[in-house]
C-alpha cells in the first residue's frame, strides 16, 4: 500500500471560507508517516492557514527534497502541483520554479537532514537570494527514513534511542537564516498549533524569503528521555518571544494590547500582522539582537520560538533582478524573440 486518496465528503457544518471552500479542499492524500509524527501536524497547520487565508488551492508550487518531511507536500493542497526533487536540492528547484512564475505561492518543505547537512549550501544561497517563498523545515534532529542516525541539528549530548550521546555541535538554521538575509525568520513547534498557524499565514503573505524552523518530534527515533527534540523536552524548554496574529483586512481589531507590547505590520494583501511581544525587551526588527538572543538562549538549553525577525520592506529576488511583472512562463514569441530584423544588427556587430 503506497497511496490512499482521501474521501472527499465532509461534515456539513464545516466552516466555509471566502472562496466557498472548506479546509477539506486544502488537504492532500492520506499521510504515510508514523502515527503521532510532528510533520503531520505541520501539514495540518498549512492546510488550516491556507484555508483561513482563502487562498486559491491550486495556485501553489510545492517543492521538497528527500526525507520524511519532504513527503509531506503530498499531504496538503492536493489541487496544486508538487515536486519531490532530490536530497538537499529543494532550494534550487524552488528558485527555478519561483523565477518561472512569480504569481504562485511557493512552499518548500525540507528537513534537518535535507537542509542542514546535504543541502546546507543550497539553503544558505536561497536565503541570500531572498526567493519569495515560505521555507519550512520540519526539524526533528534525526534521519527517520534511514532509521535514526543523528542529524546536524541534533544537540551535542542529546542521546540516540539506544542512549548513545551525539558528539558534535548542532547547526542552528535560525542563526544562519538571520545572518545571511532572510527577511522573515520564525521558530515554532509542531505541537503548538496556536502559534504555528498564524506564523505560516504571515510567512505565506510575506513578500520575500520566509523561513520557519518547526521543531517537529520524531516519534519513532527521537522522542525518548535524553533527546532534546522530544515532545516533553520542547514543551519544557521553549518560550515565545514574539507571537504573531494575522488579522484579515475586513476583520475588526477588537482586542487592544499594551501599546508597548504590540506592534502592527501592514501585509501586502491589506491584512495586518500583529506582533505580540512576550519578552518586553525584544525587538523583532533588529537582526543582530535577534541573533544574540537566540544564541544566548541556546547556550542555556532553551528554544526561543515565535516570529524572531521580520523586515516587511526587504526586496525579493525578482525585485533584485528587475524581472517583468508578467510571469516569465507566460511570455510568448512576441515578447521573447527579437526577430530577424534585430538579427541584422547582431550580424553587423560581428563583422
Amino acid at each position, binding site marked *: 500500500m*503506497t*497511496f490512499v486518496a482521501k474521501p472527499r465528503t465532509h461534515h456539513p457544518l464545516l466552516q466555509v471560507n471566502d472562496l466557498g471552500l472548506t479546509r477539506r479542499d486544502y488537504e492532500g492524500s492520506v499521510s504515510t508517516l508514523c502515527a503521532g509524527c510532528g510533520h503531520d501536524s505541520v501539514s495540518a497547520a498549512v492546510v488550516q492557514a491556507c484555508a483561513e487565508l482563502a487562498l*486559491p*488551492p*491550486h*495556485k*501553489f*508550487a510545492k*517543492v521538497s527534497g528527500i526525507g520524511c518531511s519532504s513527503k509531506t*507536500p*503530498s499531504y496538503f493542497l492536493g*489541487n*496544486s*502541483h*508538487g*515536486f*519531490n*526533487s*532530490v536530497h538537499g*536540492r529543494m*532550494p*534550487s*528547484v524552488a*528558485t*527555478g*520554479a*519561483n*523565477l*518561472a*512564475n512569480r*504569481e*504562485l505561492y511557493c512552499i518548500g518543505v525540507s528537513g534537518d537532514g535535507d537542509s542542514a547537512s546535504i543541502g546546507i*549550501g*543550497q539553503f*544558505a*544561497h536561497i536565503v541570500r*537570494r531572498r526567493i519569495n517563498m515560505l521555507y519550512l523545515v520540519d526539524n526533528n534532529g534525526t534521519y527517520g527514513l534511514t532509521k535514526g542516525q543523528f542529524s546536524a541539528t541534533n544537540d551535542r549530548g542529546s542521546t540516540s534511542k539506544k542512549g548513545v550521546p551525539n558528539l558534535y555541535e548542532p547547526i542552528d538554521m535560525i542563526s544562519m537564516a538571520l545572518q545571511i538575509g532572510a527577511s522573515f525568520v520564525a521558530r515554532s513547534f509542531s505541537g503548538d498549533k496556536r502559534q504555528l498557524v498564524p506564523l505560516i499565514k504571515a510567512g505565506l503573505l510575506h513578500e520575500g524569503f520566509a523561513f520557519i524552523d518547526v521543531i517537529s518530534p520524531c516519534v519513532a527515533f527521537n522522542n525518548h528521555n535524553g533527546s532534546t527534540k522530544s515532545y516533553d523536552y520542547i514543551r519544557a524548554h521553549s518560550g515565545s518571544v514574539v507571537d504573531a496574529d494575522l488579522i484579515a483586512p475586513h476583520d475588526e481589531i477588537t482586542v487592544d494590547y499594551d501599546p508597548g507590547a504590540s506592534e502592527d505590520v501592514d501585509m501586502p494583501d491589506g491584512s495586518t500582522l500583529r506582533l505580540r511581544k512576550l519578552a518586553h525587551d525584544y525587538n523583532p526588527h533588529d537582526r543582530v539582537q535577534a541573533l544574540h538572543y537566540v544564541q544566548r538562549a541556546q547556550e542555556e538549553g532553551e528554544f526561543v520560538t515565535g516570529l524572531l525577525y521580520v523586515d516587511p520592506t526587504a526586496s525579493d529576488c*525578482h525585485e533584485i*533582478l*528587475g*524581472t*517583468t*511583472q508578467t510571469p*516569465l*512562463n507566460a*511570455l*510568448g*514569441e512576441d*515578447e*521573447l*524573440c*527579437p*526577430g*530577424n530584423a*534585430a*538579427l541584422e544588427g*547582431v*550580424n553587423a556587430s*560581428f*563583422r
Partner: protein
Amino acid sequence: MTTYNDFVIRFANVNGSGSASANGMFAKALFRMGIPVATRNIFPSNIEGLPTWFEVRVSERGYLGRREGIDIMVAMNAETFEEDIASIVPGGYLVYDNSKELRPNFRRDDINLVGIPISQLVLPEFPNPKHRALFKNIVYLGALSALLHIDFEIIKGMVSAQFKGKDELIAPNIHAMELGRSYAREYLECPLPIQVRHSDAVGDRIMIDGNAAAAIGAIYGGATVCAWYPITPSTSLAEAFEQHCARLRVDPETGERRYAIIQAEDELAAMGIVIGAGWNGARSFTATSGPGVSLMTEFLGLAYFAEIPAVLWDIQRAGPSTGMPTRTQQGDLVSSAYASHGDTRHPLMFPSTPRECFEFGADALDLADRLQTPIIVMSDLELGMNDNLSEPFTWDDSRRYDRGKVLTEEDLDDVERFSRYLDVDGDGVGYRTLPGTHAEKGAFFTRGTSRDEHATYTEQPEHYIKNMDRLLLKWETARQLVPKAEIEAHGRRAGILYYGTTAAPMQEALDRLAEDGVQLDTMRIRGFPFGNEVREFIDSHEILFLAEQNRDAQMKSLLVNDLELDPASIIPVLYYGGFSISADTIHQQVLDYYVGNNLPRLDEVQEVSS
C-alpha cells in the same frame, strides 16, 4: 615566390600582458580585408604571468581547421622562446624584439629572422612602464601591417573602434602602431613573400565565437531562465546571454527584464534551478563543462525520469578531473549520453560552427519541450571560445516555439481524467500541465520515484517496467527529432564519420587524401540517438573511419551501443593532446591505415583523373 592569404601565424605572449586585444585586432583586420581567418587562443589556467599563444590560420581557400607548422612566429615571451623558434617551419619567419641580441643557441639557419627593436622603440615614447608593456603589442602589430601588407586604414579604424569611449587612448595607440610600421618600412624587406591582399572570400560571413552564438540562439529560442556556475570554457556563454539580453530582452517602456539569470553556488544548483523553471513552464538552460556535468548527473537522472525539459550546454575541455582545463577535447560523450544512475540516456546535439550554435541554441529548447527531457548540446573550447567564421544568423519570423504537449485550462476542461504519464499518442511522450493551470484538474505530484500513468506513487513491478519501456519508446521518437547527419556520399567504398569541431580541418584532410588516391564519403553526425541515415551510411560502406578528439573513441562507443554494431567495423582516428585535431592528423592516420593494410588506392586515383 610570393604567396597570398595562406599562412599560419602564432603570437607567443605572456598572459596578462595585454596582447589579446592587439592579436584580436590583427585577425579582425584580415577578416575585414575579406580574407578567411580562424583564431585559436591557446591559454593557461592563470590570470597573469604564464605563457599564452594566439594562432591565426589565414586561408584564401577557406581551410580553417588547425594545420601543423607555424609560418610566422611573433615571439614575445622569453620563457618559451626556444620552443617557439623550434615550431617554425623551415623557410618561415621569426618576428622578435632585437633590442637585445639573439642568443647564438637560438639561431636557426633555415628560418628568416625579422628583428624589430620593440623595447627600444617604446622606451623614449612612453614614460609610463605599464603603458610601455601594452604598447609593445601595438608596435609589433604596426610592424606586421607593413611586413604582411595589411590595409593600414582598416587597422587604424579598428583601433578607433576598440577604444571608443576611451578616446584619450586612440592617439597613443596609433602612434605606437606607426612606430612599428615606420621601422619595418625603413629597415626591413616589406612586404614579405608571405603576405595578404584584399579578397572577397569571406562574403557576408561574420566572425563570432560559438558561446556567444549559442547565447543569442537561446535568446531567439525564448529562454527566460539561465542558471550557471563559472567554469572555463563555458563561462562566456552565460555572460554573453546576459550581455545580449540587456540589449534584446528589456521592456522598452518599463525597463523590466524578460529574463532571469542566476549565478548559482555550484553546478548542482544551476541544474536544479533549470529543472525547477522547466517544471514550471519557463524555457531554461545552463552551460558548463565536464566537471559540471559530473555534478549535475543526479539532477539529470531526475529530469529524465520525472520528464522535465532542460537544456545543458557542455563546452567540453580536456579531462578527466581538472585535466587540462584550458584545452579542448571531445571527452564528455559517454558521461553525458548516459549521465546518472539507473537506465538513463539523454539526446545529444553536436554543433560544428557558430551558425549551428545559434540554431541549436533555439532548437534545443524546442526539442527539450517536445521530448520533455534534458537535451545536452556538446560544444567544446575550440568552438566555444575562439572567433570563427560563420554564415550570418537568420531567423524565420513566422516560426512559433514548439512548447510540446502542455495542456491549457480549456484543454483540461475537456479531459475526463488527467493522466500525466499516459502515452496517448503512441510516441512515448505524455501530456503535462503547469502548476496553477486549473482549479480542479491537472495537478499532480512530480517525483523521481516510480509511479503509474496517473502520476500516483507505486512500486508495483508492472507499472515500473511499463514506464521504463515507454521511456524507450520516447527514445525512438527522439531518434526522429534530433538533427540529421550531414552526408556526402558518392558510392565510395570508404567513408569517414566525424562531428563537432572535427569538421573544421576535414575538407583540408579530405583534399590531401584525395591527392594520395584516397577518396572518402563523409558523414557529419549532428545528433544522438542516431537516425536511420546514420545506420544506412554505416551499412553502405566497407571501410569506416571515425575521427574524434578523445582517447577512448567515445562516439564509437555510442554508435556500437546504440546501433549494435560490430566494434571492429569502425577504425578510430584520434587526437587528444589538447589542441584541436589538425588536418595533418586525420590525413596521416587514414593514410597509415591504407598503407598498413595494403588497401588499393590506385583505381581511386584513376577515378579522380578520369
